Protein backbone atom coordinates (compact mmCIF):
# COMPACT_ATOMS: atom_id res chain seq x y z
CA UNK A 1 0.00 0.00 0.00
CA UNK A 2 2.78 2.43 0.98
CA UNK A 3 4.75 1.51 -2.08
CA UNK A 4 1.72 2.20 -4.24
CA UNK A 5 1.23 5.62 -2.61
CA UNK A 6 4.91 6.34 -3.33
CA UNK A 7 4.38 5.45 -6.99
CA UNK A 8 1.38 7.80 -7.14
CA UNK A 9 3.42 10.65 -5.64
CA UNK A 10 6.11 10.04 -8.24
CA UNK A 11 3.52 10.16 -11.02
CA UNK A 12 2.17 13.44 -9.64
CA UNK A 13 5.55 15.15 -9.52
CA UNK A 14 6.59 13.90 -12.97
CA UNK A 15 3.36 15.01 -14.61
CA UNK A 16 3.55 18.33 -12.76
CA UNK A 17 7.07 19.05 -14.03
CA UNK A 18 6.14 18.17 -17.58
CA UNK A 19 3.09 20.39 -17.36
CA UNK A 20 5.18 23.34 -16.08
CA UNK A 21 7.65 22.91 -18.94
CA UNK A 22 4.81 22.77 -21.46
CA UNK A 23 3.25 25.92 -19.98
CA UNK A 24 6.56 27.73 -20.13
CA UNK A 25 6.93 26.92 -23.81
CA UNK A 26 3.41 28.17 -24.52
CA UNK A 27 4.05 31.37 -22.55
CA UNK A 28 7.27 32.02 -24.47
CA UNK A 29 5.39 31.69 -27.77
CA UNK A 30 2.65 34.03 -26.56
CA UNK A 31 5.27 36.58 -25.44
CA UNK A 32 7.15 36.40 -28.74
CA UNK A 33 4.01 36.76 -30.87
CA UNK A 34 2.80 39.76 -28.85
CA UNK A 35 6.30 41.28 -28.88
CA UNK A 36 6.48 40.98 -32.66
CA UNK A 37 3.07 42.61 -33.10
CA UNK A 38 4.00 45.45 -30.77
CA UNK A 39 7.31 46.21 -32.46
CA UNK A 40 5.55 46.13 -35.82
CA UNK A 41 3.13 48.81 -34.69
CA UNK A 42 5.94 50.55 -32.75
CA UNK A 43 4.07 50.43 -29.47
CA UNK A 44 5.68 49.68 -26.09
CA UNK A 45 7.01 46.13 -26.78
CA UNK A 46 7.41 45.21 -23.13
CA UNK A 47 3.61 45.13 -22.86
CA UNK A 48 3.95 41.65 -24.40
CA UNK A 49 4.87 40.41 -20.94
CA UNK A 50 1.31 40.97 -19.71
CA UNK A 51 -0.45 38.24 -21.76
CA UNK A 52 2.47 35.86 -21.18
CA UNK A 53 2.28 36.36 -17.41
CA UNK A 54 -1.51 36.03 -17.40
CA UNK A 55 -1.17 32.75 -19.30
CA UNK A 56 1.47 31.52 -16.86
CA UNK A 57 -0.93 32.14 -13.99
CA UNK A 58 -4.21 30.93 -15.53
CA UNK A 59 -3.07 27.89 -17.53
CA UNK A 60 -1.50 25.94 -14.62
CA UNK A 61 -4.71 26.35 -12.58
CA UNK A 62 -6.71 24.78 -15.40
CA UNK A 63 -4.10 22.11 -16.01
CA UNK A 64 -3.85 21.16 -12.34
CA UNK A 65 -7.62 20.54 -12.25
CA UNK A 66 -7.41 18.50 -15.44
CA UNK A 67 -4.42 16.58 -14.10
CA UNK A 68 -6.25 15.74 -10.89
CA UNK A 69 -9.11 14.22 -12.86
CA UNK A 70 -7.20 12.58 -15.67
CA UNK A 71 -3.82 11.80 -14.14
CA UNK A 72 -4.40 8.04 -14.24
CA UNK A 73 -5.83 8.18 -17.75
CA UNK A 74 -2.78 10.09 -19.03
CA UNK A 75 -0.45 7.40 -17.67
CA UNK A 76 -2.69 4.64 -19.03
CA UNK A 77 -2.62 6.21 -22.47
CA UNK A 78 1.15 6.25 -22.45
CA UNK A 79 1.31 2.55 -21.50
CA UNK A 80 -1.71 0.54 -22.76
CA UNK A 81 -1.17 -2.57 -20.55
CA UNK A 82 -2.09 -0.29 -17.63
CA UNK A 83 -5.47 0.53 -19.19
CA UNK A 84 -8.21 0.71 -16.54
CA UNK A 85 -5.89 -0.89 -13.99
CA UNK A 86 -4.24 2.27 -12.70
CA UNK A 87 -7.42 4.29 -12.27
CA UNK A 88 -9.10 1.31 -10.56
CA UNK A 89 -6.17 1.04 -8.17
CA UNK A 90 -6.16 4.81 -7.56
CA UNK A 91 -9.93 4.91 -6.93
CA UNK A 92 -9.71 1.97 -4.53
CA UNK A 93 -6.61 3.07 -2.66
CA UNK A 94 -8.47 2.99 0.66
CA UNK A 95 -9.77 -0.56 0.08
CA UNK A 96 -7.75 -3.39 1.49
CA UNK A 97 -8.41 -6.92 0.29
CA UNK A 98 -6.37 -9.58 -1.51
CA UNK A 99 -7.73 -8.66 -4.97
CA UNK A 100 -7.00 -4.93 -4.60
CA UNK A 101 -3.54 -5.66 -3.20
CA UNK A 102 -2.82 -7.96 -6.14
CA UNK A 103 -3.95 -5.17 -8.47
CA UNK A 104 -1.67 -2.66 -6.76
CA UNK A 105 1.30 -5.04 -7.09
CA UNK A 106 0.50 -5.53 -10.76
CA UNK A 107 0.28 -1.78 -11.34
CA UNK A 108 3.62 -1.15 -9.59
CA UNK A 109 5.26 -3.83 -11.70
CA UNK A 110 3.76 -2.38 -14.91
CA UNK A 111 4.79 1.15 -13.93
CA UNK A 112 8.45 0.07 -14.17
CA UNK A 113 7.98 -0.13 -17.92
CA UNK A 114 6.58 3.38 -18.20
CA UNK A 115 9.15 5.88 -19.44
CA UNK A 116 8.94 9.56 -18.57
CA UNK A 117 9.56 10.43 -22.20
CA UNK A 118 6.24 8.76 -23.09
CA UNK A 119 4.38 11.62 -21.34
CA UNK A 120 6.06 14.26 -23.48
CA UNK A 121 4.54 14.76 -26.85
CA UNK A 122 7.75 14.96 -28.94
CA UNK A 123 6.03 16.29 -32.03
CA UNK A 124 4.19 19.14 -30.33
CA UNK A 125 7.22 20.10 -28.20
CA UNK A 126 9.48 20.20 -31.27
CA UNK A 127 6.96 22.35 -33.11
CA UNK A 128 6.72 24.75 -30.18
CA UNK A 129 10.51 25.10 -29.94
CA UNK A 130 10.75 25.58 -33.71
CA UNK A 131 8.05 28.27 -33.63
CA UNK A 132 9.84 30.06 -30.74
CA UNK A 133 13.18 30.08 -32.55
CA UNK A 134 11.55 31.28 -35.78
CA UNK A 135 9.79 34.08 -33.94
CA UNK A 136 13.07 35.16 -32.35
CA UNK A 137 14.69 35.42 -35.79
CA UNK A 138 11.74 37.38 -37.20
CA UNK A 139 11.87 39.80 -34.25
CA UNK A 140 15.62 40.33 -34.73
CA UNK A 141 15.11 40.98 -38.45
CA UNK A 142 12.22 43.38 -37.90
CA UNK A 143 14.09 45.25 -35.17
CA UNK A 144 17.30 45.52 -37.21
CA UNK A 145 15.54 46.96 -40.26
CA UNK A 146 13.11 49.07 -38.30
CA UNK A 147 10.11 47.65 -40.13
CA UNK A 148 6.64 48.47 -39.05
CA UNK A 149 4.14 51.22 -38.95
CA UNK A 150 4.20 53.89 -36.28
CA UNK A 151 0.64 53.83 -35.03
CA UNK A 152 1.04 57.30 -33.42
CA UNK A 153 2.21 58.85 -36.70
CA UNK A 154 -0.63 57.17 -38.48
CA UNK A 155 -3.09 58.71 -36.06
CA UNK A 156 -1.58 62.19 -36.56
CA UNK A 157 -1.69 61.79 -40.32
CA UNK A 158 -5.29 60.76 -40.16
CA UNK A 159 -6.14 63.80 -38.10
CA UNK A 160 -4.40 66.07 -40.58
CA UNK A 161 -6.32 64.52 -43.49
CA UNK A 162 -9.60 65.20 -41.70
CA UNK A 163 -8.62 68.78 -40.94
CA UNK A 164 -7.68 69.28 -44.57
CA UNK A 165 -10.97 67.82 -45.68
CA UNK A 166 -12.84 70.29 -43.46
CA UNK A 167 -10.97 73.11 -45.09
CA UNK A 168 -11.32 71.92 -48.69
CA UNK A 169 -14.68 70.23 -48.77
CA UNK A 170 -16.41 71.89 -45.88
CA UNK A 171 -18.06 70.19 -42.93
CA UNK A 172 -19.78 67.50 -44.98
CA UNK A 173 -16.59 66.03 -46.47
CA UNK A 174 -14.79 66.44 -43.19
CA UNK A 175 -17.49 64.58 -41.27
CA UNK A 176 -17.67 61.87 -43.91
CA UNK A 177 -13.92 61.37 -43.83
CA UNK A 178 -13.98 61.45 -40.09
CA UNK A 179 -16.61 58.72 -40.03
CA UNK A 180 -14.56 56.59 -42.38
CA UNK A 181 -11.46 57.12 -40.28
CA UNK A 182 -13.36 56.26 -37.10
CA UNK A 183 -14.84 53.11 -38.68
CA UNK A 184 -11.43 51.94 -39.83
CA UNK A 185 -9.93 52.62 -36.44
CA UNK A 186 -8.31 55.84 -37.51
CA UNK A 187 -8.34 59.19 -35.76
CA UNK A 188 -11.49 60.03 -33.90
CA UNK A 189 -13.30 63.24 -34.70
CA UNK A 190 -13.40 64.24 -31.06
CA UNK A 191 -9.66 64.44 -31.02
CA UNK A 192 -9.44 67.86 -32.57
CA UNK A 193 -7.71 69.48 -29.64
CA UNK A 194 -4.44 67.77 -30.17
CA UNK A 195 -2.71 65.16 -28.10
CA UNK A 196 -4.26 64.34 -24.79
CA UNK A 197 -0.83 64.02 -23.25
CA UNK A 198 -0.04 67.56 -24.20
CA UNK A 199 -3.37 68.77 -22.84
CA UNK A 200 -2.59 67.20 -19.53
CA UNK A 201 0.57 69.19 -19.29
CA UNK A 202 -1.61 72.15 -18.27
CA UNK A 203 -2.34 70.49 -14.97
CA UNK A 204 1.26 70.03 -14.08
CA UNK A 205 3.18 72.54 -11.97
CA UNK A 206 5.87 74.15 -14.03
CA UNK A 207 8.68 76.02 -12.37
CA UNK A 208 9.37 79.05 -14.45
CA UNK A 209 12.26 81.19 -13.52
CA UNK A 210 12.43 84.68 -14.92
CA UNK A 211 15.97 85.81 -15.22
CA UNK A 212 16.47 89.54 -15.18
CA UNK A 213 17.63 90.74 -18.55
CA UNK A 214 20.91 92.45 -18.35
CA UNK A 215 20.90 95.99 -19.55
CA UNK A 216 23.65 98.29 -20.44
CA UNK A 217 23.32 101.96 -21.19
CA UNK A 218 25.26 103.25 -24.04
CA UNK A 219 26.35 106.56 -22.74
CA UNK A 220 27.10 107.79 -26.20
CA UNK A 221 23.51 107.44 -27.18
CA UNK A 222 22.15 109.37 -24.24
CA UNK A 223 20.83 112.67 -25.38
CA UNK A 224 19.50 115.70 -23.65
CA UNK A 225 15.85 115.80 -22.75
CA UNK A 226 13.81 117.27 -25.52
CA UNK A 227 10.75 119.24 -24.90
CA UNK A 228 8.04 118.32 -27.23
CA UNK A 229 4.86 120.14 -27.86
CA UNK A 230 1.72 118.15 -28.58
CA UNK A 231 -0.81 119.39 -31.00
CA UNK A 232 -4.23 119.69 -29.44
CA UNK A 233 -6.02 120.36 -32.65
CA UNK A 234 -7.57 116.89 -33.02
CA UNK A 235 -9.21 117.10 -29.66
CA UNK A 236 -10.34 120.60 -30.26
CA UNK A 237 -11.91 119.66 -33.60
CA UNK A 238 -13.74 116.73 -32.10
CA UNK A 239 -15.15 118.81 -29.32
CA UNK A 240 -15.76 121.92 -31.32
CA UNK A 241 -19.46 121.33 -31.64
CA UNK A 242 -20.05 120.23 -28.07
CA UNK A 243 -18.60 123.29 -26.36
CA UNK A 244 -16.32 122.54 -23.49
CA UNK A 245 -15.44 119.03 -24.54
CA UNK A 246 -12.50 117.48 -22.75
CA UNK A 247 -11.27 113.88 -23.10
CA UNK A 248 -12.60 113.19 -19.61
CA UNK A 249 -15.99 114.44 -20.45
CA UNK A 250 -16.14 112.52 -23.68
CA UNK A 251 -15.39 109.35 -21.65
CA UNK A 252 -18.17 110.18 -19.22
CA UNK A 253 -20.64 110.79 -21.98
CA UNK A 254 -19.97 107.72 -24.12
CA UNK A 255 -19.88 104.91 -21.48
CA UNK A 256 -22.34 103.95 -18.74
CA UNK A 257 -21.34 104.71 -15.21
CA UNK A 258 -20.71 101.08 -14.14
CA UNK A 259 -18.25 100.53 -16.94
CA UNK A 260 -16.52 103.79 -16.15
CA UNK A 261 -16.12 102.60 -12.55
CA UNK A 262 -14.76 99.31 -13.74
CA UNK A 263 -12.16 100.94 -15.98
CA UNK A 264 -11.20 103.36 -13.25
CA UNK A 265 -10.68 100.55 -10.75
CA UNK A 266 -8.67 98.58 -13.28
CA UNK A 267 -6.24 101.39 -13.87
CA UNK A 268 -6.02 102.11 -10.17
CA UNK A 269 -5.08 98.50 -9.51
CA UNK A 270 -2.47 98.60 -12.25
CA UNK A 271 -0.94 101.76 -10.93
CA UNK A 272 -0.73 100.19 -7.45
Amino acid at each position, binding site marked *: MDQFRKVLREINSTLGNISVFDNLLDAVIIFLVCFLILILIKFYPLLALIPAIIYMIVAPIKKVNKLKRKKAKIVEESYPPL*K*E*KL*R*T*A*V*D*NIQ*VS*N*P*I*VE*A*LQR*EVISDMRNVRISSFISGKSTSYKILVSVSLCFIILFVAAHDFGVDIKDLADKGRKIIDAAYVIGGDELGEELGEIMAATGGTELDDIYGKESTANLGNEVIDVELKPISYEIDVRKVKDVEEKEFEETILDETCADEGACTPQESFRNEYPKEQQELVKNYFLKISK
Partner: protein
Amino acid sequence: MRSYKETFDTLFKEIDKVIVGQREVMEQIVVAMLCDNNALIEGFPGLAKTFAIRTLSRLMDLKFSRIQSTPDLMPSDITGTYIIEETSGGRRNFKFQPGPVFANIVLADEINRATPKTQSAFLEAMQEKQVTVGNSTYKLDLPFFVLATQNPIEQEGTYPLPEAQADRFLLKINIDYPTESDEEEIVNRYTSEAREHHLRTIFNKKQFLALQQIVRQVPVANDIKRKAIKIVTTTRESKNLLQYGASPRASIGLILASKARALLMGRNHVGMEDIIKLAYPILRHRIILNFEAQRKGLKADDAIKEIIGKVK
Protein backbone atom coordinates in the same frame (compact mmCIF):
# COMPACT_ATOMS: atom_id res chain seq x y z
CA MET B 1 -5.48 -14.14 -10.02
CA ARG B 2 -3.74 -16.69 -12.18
CA SER B 3 -5.08 -19.51 -10.02
CA TYR B 4 -8.68 -18.28 -10.47
CA LYS B 5 -8.15 -18.03 -14.18
CA GLU B 6 -6.71 -21.53 -14.33
CA THR B 7 -9.61 -22.90 -12.29
CA PHE B 8 -12.21 -21.35 -14.56
CA ASP B 9 -10.31 -22.46 -17.65
CA THR B 10 -10.42 -26.02 -16.34
CA LEU B 11 -14.14 -25.64 -15.66
CA PHE B 12 -14.85 -24.54 -19.23
CA LYS B 13 -12.59 -27.27 -20.59
CA GLU B 14 -14.76 -29.81 -18.79
CA ILE B 15 -17.92 -28.13 -20.06
CA ASP B 16 -16.54 -28.29 -23.60
CA LYS B 17 -16.40 -32.06 -23.27
CA VAL B 18 -20.19 -32.06 -23.19
CA ILE B 19 -21.41 -28.82 -24.69
CA VAL B 20 -20.19 -27.77 -28.10
CA GLY B 21 -19.75 -24.03 -28.55
CA GLN B 22 -22.08 -21.79 -26.49
CA ARG B 23 -19.06 -20.53 -24.55
CA GLU B 24 -20.60 -17.12 -23.92
CA VAL B 25 -23.84 -18.68 -22.65
CA MET B 26 -21.94 -20.90 -20.26
CA GLU B 27 -19.87 -17.94 -19.05
CA GLN B 28 -23.01 -15.96 -18.36
CA ILE B 29 -24.57 -18.82 -16.41
CA VAL B 30 -21.42 -19.09 -14.27
CA VAL B 31 -21.46 -15.29 -13.82
CA ALA B 32 -25.03 -15.46 -12.48
CA MET B 33 -24.02 -18.26 -10.12
CA LEU B 34 -20.92 -16.39 -8.92
CA CYS B 35 -23.16 -13.40 -8.16
CA ASP B 36 -25.37 -15.67 -6.05
CA ASN B 37 -28.25 -14.87 -8.34
CA ASN B 38 -30.64 -16.42 -10.82
CA ALA B 39 -30.72 -16.58 -14.60
CA LEU B 40 -33.45 -16.88 -17.18
CA ILE B 41 -32.38 -18.77 -20.25
CA GLU B 42 -34.34 -18.32 -23.44
CA GLY B 43 -33.83 -20.33 -26.56
CA PHE B 44 -35.49 -22.61 -29.04
CA PRO B 45 -36.02 -26.27 -28.13
CA GLY B 46 -33.08 -28.60 -28.62
CA LEU B 47 -30.32 -26.16 -27.81
CA ALA B 48 -29.09 -28.05 -24.74
CA LYS B 49 -30.37 -25.55 -22.18
CA THR B 50 -31.28 -28.22 -19.66
CA PHE B 51 -28.23 -30.27 -20.46
CA ALA B 52 -25.90 -27.32 -19.88
CA ILE B 53 -27.31 -26.64 -16.43
CA ARG B 54 -27.22 -30.26 -15.44
CA THR B 55 -23.57 -30.40 -16.54
CA LEU B 56 -22.70 -27.40 -14.41
CA SER B 57 -24.26 -28.95 -11.34
CA ARG B 58 -22.16 -32.05 -11.86
CA LEU B 59 -18.96 -30.03 -12.25
CA MET B 60 -19.61 -28.10 -9.07
CA ASP B 61 -20.77 -30.95 -6.95
CA LEU B 62 -24.06 -29.23 -6.25
CA LYS B 63 -27.44 -30.82 -5.65
CA PHE B 64 -29.51 -30.46 -8.78
CA SER B 65 -33.27 -30.69 -9.21
CA ARG B 66 -35.47 -30.11 -12.18
CA ILE B 67 -39.04 -28.87 -12.25
CA GLN B 68 -40.89 -29.23 -15.50
CA SER B 69 -43.42 -26.42 -15.50
CA THR B 70 -46.90 -27.20 -16.72
CA PRO B 71 -50.18 -25.29 -16.33
CA ASP B 72 -51.34 -27.71 -13.61
CA LEU B 73 -48.15 -27.42 -11.54
CA MET B 74 -49.04 -26.33 -8.02
CA PRO B 75 -46.90 -24.20 -5.66
CA SER B 76 -46.74 -27.10 -3.21
CA ASP B 77 -45.24 -29.21 -5.98
CA ILE B 78 -42.28 -26.85 -5.84
CA THR B 79 -41.96 -25.88 -2.21
CA GLY B 80 -43.01 -29.15 -0.67
CA THR B 81 -45.91 -29.96 1.60
CA TYR B 82 -46.88 -31.51 4.91
CA ILE B 83 -47.64 -35.19 4.81
CA ILE B 84 -49.15 -37.35 7.54
CA GLU B 85 -46.61 -39.68 9.04
CA GLU B 86 -47.45 -42.49 11.37
CA THR B 87 -44.99 -43.01 14.19
CA SER B 88 -44.12 -46.38 15.74
CA GLY B 89 -46.46 -45.62 18.66
CA GLY B 90 -49.39 -45.33 16.32
CA ARG B 91 -49.50 -41.56 16.49
CA ARG B 92 -49.93 -39.54 13.39
CA ASN B 93 -47.89 -36.41 12.81
CA PHE B 94 -47.57 -33.88 10.06
CA LYS B 95 -44.14 -34.05 8.56
CA PHE B 96 -42.73 -31.54 6.08
CA GLN B 97 -41.76 -33.17 2.83
CA PRO B 98 -39.37 -30.77 1.04
CA GLY B 99 -40.12 -30.11 -2.59
CA PRO B 100 -37.66 -29.93 -5.49
CA VAL B 101 -36.81 -26.35 -4.60
CA PHE B 102 -34.63 -27.76 -1.81
CA ALA B 103 -31.53 -28.15 -3.93
CA ASN B 104 -28.57 -26.00 -4.89
CA ILE B 105 -29.38 -25.63 -8.54
CA VAL B 106 -33.05 -25.66 -9.44
CA LEU B 107 -33.84 -25.89 -13.11
CA ALA B 108 -37.32 -24.50 -13.72
CA ASP B 109 -37.86 -25.80 -17.23
CA GLU B 110 -40.23 -23.78 -19.40
CA ILE B 111 -41.18 -21.56 -16.51
CA ASN B 112 -43.61 -19.58 -18.65
CA ARG B 113 -45.87 -22.65 -18.87
CA ALA B 114 -46.58 -22.57 -15.12
CA THR B 115 -49.44 -20.43 -13.81
CA PRO B 116 -48.61 -17.06 -12.22
CA LYS B 117 -49.41 -18.51 -8.79
CA THR B 118 -46.83 -21.25 -9.23
CA GLN B 119 -44.33 -18.84 -10.77
CA SER B 120 -44.64 -16.61 -7.73
CA ALA B 121 -43.87 -19.61 -5.51
CA PHE B 122 -40.34 -19.28 -6.80
CA LEU B 123 -40.16 -15.62 -5.75
CA GLU B 124 -39.42 -16.12 -2.08
CA ALA B 125 -36.93 -18.87 -2.80
CA MET B 126 -35.14 -16.74 -5.39
CA GLN B 127 -34.99 -13.58 -3.34
CA GLU B 128 -34.88 -14.66 0.28
CA LYS B 129 -33.33 -18.12 -0.16
CA GLN B 130 -36.08 -19.54 2.03
CA VAL B 131 -39.45 -21.21 1.67
CA THR B 132 -42.54 -20.64 3.78
CA VAL B 133 -45.05 -23.47 3.99
CA GLY B 134 -47.94 -22.98 6.36
CA ASN B 135 -46.55 -21.20 9.36
CA SER B 136 -43.04 -22.50 9.04
CA THR B 137 -40.13 -21.02 7.16
CA TYR B 138 -37.39 -23.28 5.90
CA LYS B 139 -33.94 -21.99 4.95
CA LEU B 140 -32.59 -23.26 1.68
CA ASP B 141 -29.19 -24.83 1.39
CA LEU B 142 -26.56 -22.42 0.02
CA PRO B 143 -25.51 -21.84 -2.69
CA PHE B 144 -28.96 -21.65 -4.24
CA PHE B 145 -29.77 -20.74 -7.82
CA VAL B 146 -32.87 -20.89 -9.93
CA LEU B 147 -32.01 -21.30 -13.56
CA ALA B 148 -35.22 -21.03 -15.50
CA THR B 149 -35.67 -21.71 -19.16
CA GLN B 150 -38.34 -20.45 -21.50
CA ASN B 151 -39.25 -21.00 -25.06
CA PRO B 152 -39.66 -17.99 -27.35
CA ILE B 153 -42.08 -19.88 -29.60
CA GLU B 154 -45.36 -21.66 -28.85
CA GLN B 155 -46.61 -18.75 -26.77
CA GLU B 156 -50.16 -20.06 -26.73
CA GLY B 157 -51.17 -21.26 -23.28
CA THR B 158 -48.16 -19.69 -21.62
CA TYR B 159 -48.00 -17.12 -18.85
CA PRO B 160 -45.26 -14.61 -19.60
CA LEU B 161 -43.31 -13.73 -16.47
CA PRO B 162 -44.58 -10.56 -14.82
CA GLU B 163 -42.04 -7.68 -14.77
CA ALA B 164 -41.61 -7.95 -11.00
CA GLN B 165 -40.62 -11.58 -11.31
CA ALA B 166 -38.47 -11.10 -14.38
CA ASP B 167 -36.55 -8.41 -12.46
CA ARG B 168 -35.55 -11.09 -9.91
CA PHE B 169 -33.43 -12.82 -12.55
CA LEU B 170 -29.99 -11.25 -12.76
CA LEU B 171 -29.49 -12.23 -16.38
CA LYS B 172 -31.65 -13.15 -19.31
CA ILE B 173 -29.43 -15.31 -21.45
CA ASN B 174 -30.34 -15.87 -25.07
CA ILE B 175 -29.19 -19.14 -26.58
CA ASP B 176 -28.77 -19.05 -30.32
CA TYR B 177 -28.40 -21.88 -32.82
CA PRO B 178 -24.89 -23.32 -33.09
CA THR B 179 -22.72 -22.63 -36.12
CA GLU B 180 -22.57 -25.21 -38.87
CA SER B 181 -19.18 -26.53 -37.78
CA ASP B 182 -20.36 -26.71 -34.16
CA GLU B 183 -23.44 -28.58 -35.25
CA GLU B 184 -21.30 -31.07 -37.17
CA GLU B 185 -19.25 -31.62 -34.02
CA ILE B 186 -22.46 -32.13 -32.00
CA VAL B 187 -23.65 -34.71 -34.49
CA ASN B 188 -20.31 -36.52 -34.44
CA ARG B 189 -20.13 -36.49 -30.67
CA TYR B 190 -23.65 -37.75 -30.01
CA THR B 191 -24.00 -40.31 -32.75
CA SER B 192 -20.87 -42.27 -31.94
CA GLU B 193 -20.64 -45.20 -29.55
CA ALA B 194 -19.27 -43.48 -26.46
CA ARG B 195 -22.03 -41.22 -25.11
CA GLU B 196 -21.05 -41.11 -21.49
CA HIS B 197 -18.60 -38.35 -20.61
CA HIS B 198 -16.49 -38.58 -17.52
CA LEU B 199 -16.59 -35.16 -15.86
CA ARG B 200 -14.49 -34.32 -12.85
CA THR B 201 -15.64 -32.02 -10.11
CA ILE B 202 -13.94 -28.64 -10.22
CA PHE B 203 -15.41 -26.92 -7.15
CA ASN B 204 -17.17 -28.10 -4.10
CA LYS B 205 -19.88 -26.16 -2.28
CA LYS B 206 -17.47 -24.50 0.15
CA GLN B 207 -15.09 -23.38 -2.57
CA PHE B 208 -17.94 -21.99 -4.61
CA LEU B 209 -19.26 -19.97 -1.65
CA ALA B 210 -15.74 -18.59 -1.13
CA LEU B 211 -15.62 -17.59 -4.79
CA GLN B 212 -18.90 -15.71 -4.36
CA GLN B 213 -17.24 -13.67 -1.61
CA ILE B 214 -14.14 -12.99 -3.72
CA VAL B 215 -16.30 -11.65 -6.58
CA ARG B 216 -17.47 -8.82 -4.34
CA GLN B 217 -13.86 -7.83 -3.62
CA VAL B 218 -13.04 -7.09 -7.26
CA PRO B 219 -12.53 -3.32 -7.49
CA VAL B 220 -14.17 -1.02 -10.03
CA ALA B 221 -12.87 2.37 -11.17
CA ASN B 222 -15.20 5.26 -10.38
CA ASP B 223 -15.59 6.39 -13.98
CA ILE B 224 -16.45 2.85 -15.11
CA LYS B 225 -18.99 2.57 -12.31
CA ARG B 226 -20.53 5.89 -13.32
CA LYS B 227 -20.77 4.76 -16.94
CA ALA B 228 -22.51 1.52 -15.90
CA ILE B 229 -25.03 3.50 -13.87
CA LYS B 230 -25.47 5.95 -16.74
CA ILE B 231 -26.36 3.06 -19.07
CA VAL B 232 -29.09 1.93 -16.68
CA THR B 233 -30.46 5.42 -16.01
CA THR B 234 -30.48 6.23 -19.73
CA THR B 235 -32.98 3.37 -20.23
CA ARG B 236 -35.39 5.42 -18.10
CA GLU B 237 -34.77 8.60 -20.08
CA SER B 238 -34.89 7.14 -23.60
CA LYS B 239 -38.58 7.75 -24.19
CA ASN B 240 -38.07 7.61 -27.95
CA LEU B 241 -37.26 3.89 -27.63
CA LEU B 242 -38.53 2.59 -24.35
CA GLN B 243 -41.78 2.66 -22.49
CA TYR B 244 -40.19 1.52 -19.23
CA GLY B 245 -36.54 1.50 -18.21
CA ALA B 246 -34.58 -0.66 -15.82
CA SER B 247 -34.69 -0.39 -12.03
CA PRO B 248 -31.73 0.35 -9.71
CA ARG B 249 -31.57 -3.42 -9.23
CA ALA B 250 -30.19 -3.48 -12.77
CA SER B 251 -27.36 -1.11 -11.76
CA ILE B 252 -26.44 -3.35 -8.84
CA GLY B 253 -26.66 -6.40 -11.08
CA LEU B 254 -24.54 -4.83 -13.82
CA ILE B 255 -21.68 -3.94 -11.49
CA LEU B 256 -21.79 -7.26 -9.63
CA ALA B 257 -22.00 -9.32 -12.82
CA SER B 258 -19.11 -7.33 -14.30
CA LYS B 259 -17.04 -8.11 -11.23
CA ALA B 260 -17.80 -11.81 -11.66
CA ARG B 261 -16.89 -11.68 -15.35
CA ALA B 262 -13.62 -9.90 -14.55
CA LEU B 263 -12.74 -12.69 -12.11
CA LEU B 264 -13.74 -15.29 -14.68
CA MET B 265 -11.39 -13.67 -17.19
CA GLY B 266 -8.55 -13.64 -14.66
CA ARG B 267 -8.56 -9.88 -14.17
CA ASN B 268 -8.41 -8.15 -10.81
CA HIS B 269 -10.37 -5.12 -11.95
CA VAL B 270 -13.58 -4.46 -13.84
CA GLY B 271 -13.16 -3.15 -17.36
CA MET B 272 -15.54 -1.30 -19.62
CA GLU B 273 -15.56 -4.43 -21.76
CA ASP B 274 -17.26 -6.36 -18.92
CA ILE B 275 -19.90 -3.66 -18.53
CA ILE B 276 -20.73 -3.60 -22.23
CA LYS B 277 -20.81 -7.39 -22.57
CA LEU B 278 -23.14 -7.81 -19.62
CA ALA B 279 -25.39 -4.82 -20.27
CA TYR B 280 -27.37 -6.91 -22.76
CA PRO B 281 -28.29 -9.89 -20.54
CA ILE B 282 -28.79 -7.58 -17.55
CA LEU B 283 -31.13 -5.14 -19.29
CA ARG B 284 -33.00 -7.06 -22.00
CA HIS B 285 -35.71 -8.42 -19.67
CA ARG B 286 -35.93 -5.23 -17.63
CA ILE B 287 -36.90 -2.82 -20.39
CA ILE B 288 -40.11 -2.54 -22.38
CA LEU B 289 -39.96 -1.14 -25.89
CA ASN B 290 -42.47 1.53 -26.80
CA PHE B 291 -44.95 1.14 -29.63
CA GLU B 292 -42.84 3.14 -32.10
CA ALA B 293 -39.77 0.95 -31.51
CA GLN B 294 -41.87 -2.21 -31.86
CA ARG B 295 -43.40 -0.88 -35.06
CA LYS B 296 -39.92 -0.35 -36.46
CA GLY B 297 -39.16 -3.99 -35.66
CA LEU B 298 -36.53 -3.17 -33.06
CA LYS B 299 -35.61 -5.68 -30.37
CA ALA B 300 -34.54 -5.05 -26.79
CA ASP B 301 -30.91 -5.69 -27.77
CA ASP B 302 -31.10 -3.02 -30.50
CA ALA B 303 -32.32 -0.47 -27.97
CA ILE B 304 -29.56 -1.45 -25.51
CA LYS B 305 -26.96 -1.13 -28.29
CA GLU B 306 -28.18 2.39 -29.04
CA ILE B 307 -28.11 3.35 -25.36
CA ILE B 308 -24.57 1.99 -24.92
CA GLY B 309 -23.53 3.97 -28.00
CA LYS B 310 -24.93 7.14 -26.45
CA VAL B 311 -23.19 6.62 -23.10
CA LYS B 312 -19.83 5.50 -24.52
